[in-house]
């Protein structure tokens, strides 16, 4: 039965439809796998009753023959998504005990399509982090290890629990969110596939907001086909999010032909960073050769403002976060500090936020407050927004030259050890997102695909960046890369 957990979404869908297995059997198998994997700290709120109830309903739907692709498939939901009647804390102490009375649009769409929620997944607090070390639940652990070394590694962040759960076969797939790389970096660190769609593809309604102009939800899956299947179920226009686009949602899976002959793939010279590890360099050139061998035309391109993406991000994202997180004041939901005699409302706000927010969140809220404060707004915030315009124009001009997709490394290194970055200054941690953050600033779709292992046996991924709204074409290029790379490695089970 354990083999059931190793299925892809597509394989499980086909088995369900063929009557080889029921959703209840599948769900029970995963619930058992989850209970055996507490050492990974991936699932932080388990929902076995909801899962079995939905699995039973899915089996009825499948028997009736009208089941959508996701029907009966057990998945995990990142804790950032509000789920009705189920704790939704964004991994923060300030949302301790918060149980939404509503369901996020994305998780509702998945539920409507018959997907089975197994529980909520660990993450960095308010999605602020690249290692899952800022979570109030404690670290999520990467199922991968360096050779025979049993040191615990990060699954990446912020969607670290989602990445660990999918890589360890605790669910068929999971939702993630990506503000600066939070789907693609953890996917690369755990040898799975993750796509951040174009800004506006998925509704943000009911997803706890971090930086609203950058946040997007997306699927984290075992392969590209699964990403296509799950993305289709997640996206679409939503009246409750005016930034969600009113465009038809294509059948992404049907676009996976693997034929990329004549496609123009751009290789941006600015992504060849000083001090880039030789292994990442090789991974990248190998990936380039694979796409070339598949018939694509390789073109050297320039994205001149790349260097300024991270600093612009670290103005814009904290600025938006400081505004979004103003709502956590101890009045309407979540934690409220115990007050001393004579404390007024200001003391209540200040103590509540000092107790409820972790260190990294406090720092980002304060940096955001500073860059938006009188006298600095133009120098920092408006300048960063101007640089963002230039970063987007860089991409627009290469797409205007006929480039179909851009190939880059997904991360500057393989997964690092938990605690290894504790003493580094915050900028060292921020550099994890150096290849991914440009894509959020430009609102483009980006997908991370595992294509190799480093010398210590850890997975490495490449990123493909596509034109806006052309996720189908992007996924097809990713599919061709996946087929050429033939990445099949899995972490050995130690948990």
């Amino acid at each position, binding site marked *: 039965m354990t083999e059931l957990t190793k299925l892809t979404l597509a394989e499980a869908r086909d088995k369900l439809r063929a009557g080889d297995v029921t959703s209840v059997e599948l769900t029970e198998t995963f619930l058992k796998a989850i209970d055996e994997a507490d050492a990974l700290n991936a699932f932080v709120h388990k929902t076995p009753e909801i899962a079995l109830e939905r699995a039973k309903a899915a089996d009825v739907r499948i028997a009736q023959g009208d089941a959508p692709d996701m029907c009966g498939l057990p998945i995990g939901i990142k804790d950032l998504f509000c789920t009705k009647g189920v704790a939704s804390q964004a991994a923060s102490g300030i949302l301790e*005990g*918060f*149980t*939404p*009375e509503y369901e996020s649009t994305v998780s509702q769409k998945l539920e409507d399509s018959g997907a089975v929620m197994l529980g909520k997944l660990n993450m960095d607090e308010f999605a602020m982090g690249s290692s899952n070390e800022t979570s109030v639940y404690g670290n999520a652990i990467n199922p991968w290890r360096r050779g025979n070394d049993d040191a615990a590694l990060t699954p990446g962040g912020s969607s670290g629990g989602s990445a660990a759960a999918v890589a360890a076969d605790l669910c068929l797939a999971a939702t993630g969110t990506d503000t600066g790389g939070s789907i693609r970096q953890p996917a690369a660190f755990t040898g799975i596939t993750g796509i951040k769609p174009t*800004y*506006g593809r998925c509704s943000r309604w009911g997803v706890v907001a971090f930086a609203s*102009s950058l946040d997007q939800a997306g699927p984290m899956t075992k392969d590209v086909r699964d990403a296509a299947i799950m993305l289709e179920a997640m996206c679409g*226009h939503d*009246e409750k999010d*005016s*930034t969600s*686009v009113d465009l038809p949602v294509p059948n992404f899976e049907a676009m996976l032909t693997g034929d990329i002959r004549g496609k123009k793939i751009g290789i941006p010279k600015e992504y060849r960073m000083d001090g880039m590890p030789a292994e990442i360099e090789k991974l990248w050139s190998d990936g380039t050769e694979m796409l070339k061998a598949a018939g694509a035309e390789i073109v050297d391109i320039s994205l001149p*403002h790349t260097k*300024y993406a*991270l*600093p612009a991000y*670290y*103005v814009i994202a904290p600025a938006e976060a400081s505004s979004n997180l103003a709502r956590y004041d101890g*009045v*309407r*939901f*979540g*934690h*409220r500090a115990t*007050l001393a005699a004579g*404390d*007024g*409302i*200001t*003391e*209540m*706000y*200040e*103590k509540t*936020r*000092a107790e409820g927010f972790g260190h990294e969140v*406090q*720092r980002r*809220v*304060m*940096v955001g*407050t*500073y860059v938006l*404060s009188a006298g600095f707004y133009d120098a*920092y915030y*408006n*300048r*960063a*927004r*101007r*640089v*963002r*315009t*230039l970063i*987007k124009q860089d991409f627009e001009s290469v797409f205007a030259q006929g480039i179909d997709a851009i190939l880059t490394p997904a991360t500057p290194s393989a997964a690092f050890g938990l605690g290894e970055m504790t003493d580094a200054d915050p*900028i060292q941690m*921020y550099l994890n997102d150096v290849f991914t953050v440009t894509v959020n*600033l430009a*609102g483009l779709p980006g997908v991370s695909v595992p294509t190799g292992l480093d010398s210590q046996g850890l997975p490495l991924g490449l990123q493909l960046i596509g034109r806006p709204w052309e996720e189908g074409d992007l996924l097809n290029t990713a599919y061709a890369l996946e087929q050429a790379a033939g990445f099949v490695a899995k972490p050995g089970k130690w948990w």
Partner: protein
Amino acid sequence: MSIDESTAAKVAKLARIKVEEDALPALAQEFNAVLGFIEQLNEVDVDGVEPMVSVTPMRLKRREDVVTDGDQQEKILSNAPDAREGFFAVPKVVE
């Protein structure tokens, strides 16, 4: 631009986050690390460049200006740390 302890204290106050006196030097240092990183943006020529407002060049979708929701006081108050008589309760604001 270097941030001193009194600026750090002012920012903490604006952000409504209580920071103890003895934590201010470390906080100011962290701010300076982040702001030093951000300073790079000054190298970019942004003359005549519009600040980005929306990353997707489209008009936001409008909807009918009608009531779509409401009448759920109990649900709204269900997560409040202190709700009384149908209201959110907070410490006394006006003397």
